[in-house]
């Protein structure tokens, strides 16, 4: 986590100002620009299947980005992220169905409501940290999911319908159109978090993670920033949940289990703790893994010896086992995630042939 020891030499910055650039090098800036253009053109260029996958990746990525603020930047582990995601989904549907709030406004409102709930459940963070906090968030996961199944005025007890949004009279009813809503939110959240990282508040969060005693001595209000991290993280979870609700058009209580919380954690660990593009890379990895497993196992069944026949009746198990194994392999061999690995490769290309 943020260790400088493993970084090859290559920090050539000479002023503090260059340390603050949003895009550290021209290459990163251009990559981001090209990625944005490709994404804008995606619904035109790609099949609806790919667009569907991209929407799911974007939604999970926004949620994972929120979790990354909490876990990667502030060092507080949350095992209850899926519950906040679910709260966002239900509150957006609730606002839109019962008060006639336009969906595009209901989405950020749901984010704000979730942020408040997140801060309430983050209150224990004022006193506890590390492992104890992780267990407290585990409890909040169970309590919130129990609330969902109990509060019939809010969720019907099993699930509610959510409608697709419309944009000044244009209904965003197809995947291709809805894609732009998700894309806009993904870009907004990436820019927000990237800017947060270079503001005083963001540096305060990182200081709380790295050495909270020093941070407190330097005048950082620990309680405030710990709870603020919960608020920011839940805001993005709520927005992502709302986006998910209006995409799927039905929010079911069962979706927001602890397994989903674990998936979000897996995304940021695989993508890279504390990294903005890492959250989206991890989301892509976790969302695409089942597809990949399906292709490979299909291939093995059709081509390989009959031994692979057992995979046929246990596809979902094979998926789960792969996810678990990938998490363990990443933790053992690349604990800093894909984003870190890409950075290493980039630096070794830049410094070739003298990397030391």
């Amino acid at each position, binding site marked *: 986590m943020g260790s400088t020891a493993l970084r090859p030499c290559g920090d050539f910055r000479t002023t503090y100002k260059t340390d603050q650039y949003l895009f550290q090098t021209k290459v990163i800036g251009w990559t981001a620009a090209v990625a944005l253009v490709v994404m804008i053109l995606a619904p035109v260029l790609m099949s609806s299947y790919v667009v569907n996958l991209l929407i799911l990746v974007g939604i999970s990525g926004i949620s994972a980005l929120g979790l990354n603020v909490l876990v990667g930047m502030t060092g507080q*582990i949350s095992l209850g992220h899926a519950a906040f995601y679910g709260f966002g989904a239900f509150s957006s549907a609730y606002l839109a169905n019962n008060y006639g709030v336009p969906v595009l406004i209901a989405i950020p409102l749901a984010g704000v409501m979730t942020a408040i709930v997140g801060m309430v459940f983050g209150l224990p963070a004022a*006193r506890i940290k590390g*492992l104890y906090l992780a*267990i407290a968030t585990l409890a*909040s996961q169970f309590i919130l999911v129990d609330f969902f199944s109990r509060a019939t005025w809010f969720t019907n007890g099993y699930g509610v319908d959510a409608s697709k949004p419309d944009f000044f009279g244009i209904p965003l009813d197809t995947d291709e159109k809805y894609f732009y809503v998700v894309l806009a939110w993904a870009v907004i959240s990436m820019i927000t978090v990237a800017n947060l990282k270079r503001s005083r508040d963001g540096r305060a969060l990182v200081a709380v993670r790295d050495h909270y005693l020093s941070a407190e001595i330097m005048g950082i209000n620990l309680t405030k920033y710990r709870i603020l991290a919960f608020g920011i993280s839940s805001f993005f979870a709520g927005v992502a949940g709302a986006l998910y609700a209006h995409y799927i058009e039905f929010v079911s209580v069962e979706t927001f289990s602890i*397994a989903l919380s674990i998936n979000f954690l897996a995304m940021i660990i695989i993508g890279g703790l504390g990294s903005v593009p890492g959250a989206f890379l991890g989301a892509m990895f976790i969302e695409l893994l089942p597809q990949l497993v399906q292709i490979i196992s299909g291939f093995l069944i059709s081509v390989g010896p009959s031994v692979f026949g057992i995979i046929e009746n246990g596809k979902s198990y094979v998926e789960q086992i792969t*996810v678990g194994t990938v*998490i*363990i392999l990443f933790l053992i061999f690349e604990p800093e995630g894909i984003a870190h690995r890409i950075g290493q490769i980039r630096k070794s290309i830049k410094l070739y042939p003298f990397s030391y």
Partner: protein
Amino acid sequence: MNWFLLTQLLANGLIVGMLYGVVAMCFVLIYKSTQVVNFAQGEFLVLGAWVCLAMVVKAGLPFYVAFPFTLVFMTIFGILIQTVILRPLIGEPIISIIMVTIALSIIMQSVLNWTFGNSSASFPQIFPVENVSLFGLQVETAYIMSLVLSFFVMALFYAFFQYSKYGLAMRATAYDQQAAQSLGVSVGQVFAMSWAISAVVSGIAGIIIGIVSGVSSSLAVIGIKVFPAVIVGGLDSIVGAIVGGVIIGLLENFAEFVDGQYLQWGNLYTIAPFYVLIIILVIKPYGLFGTRDIERI
């Protein structure tokens, strides 16, 4: 007020609570000696129960043969998990360690469900008598056995840590790793041993619960119930784990009583421990018996 029902439920709570206590003890053992939080504790129970059941039903072994074989299997399994998966992660931040055990539980869950199926299975009759009457309460023999076995395991734990060389080595390691190492304790061995003991004892608990209420993947829920128990008792206290387990067991059944008699909310019994967990964490974060972290600058 239905006193009879209340006593019956509280007796149930005590018995179940003792089992929670035993599992919580395994959890604390691993946490105390290796600083690892084991989210796969529940799956250990399921594994032990299924392996024993498979030996009894599929291989046709008598229970008293299958039982020790299961324990041997669990020992090997515990050591293997520690050396292969957790040893490379020594010294990593807490998030990595939490995630690795969560990933382990995901893998174990799917492998177990894949091999043994999703449905529940029960042990063939082991005791000749089904029910015993005790102070006017009807108690199943299996419950009595589970109570006795829980006490036995606890006594064994106590003796092991108090009198045996290995137990002392483990306590020394838990207290101060470097000092223990410089006095000739093999820390690696202690780590492997604590995982092995924890796996074995969880296996025993899994078999007991399997006998009482059938074997299925839902046994893993106990791995989650352990968290309220250890937080109430204090994360690094073995005595606390037992006390916490009993408290949570009683509380659950009391919640069910209140729910069933007065509130009619349904499900209160599964969620009550987590409310208690949050309350305890806010007012007394280190539990009843846990050591307070004192931090010096």
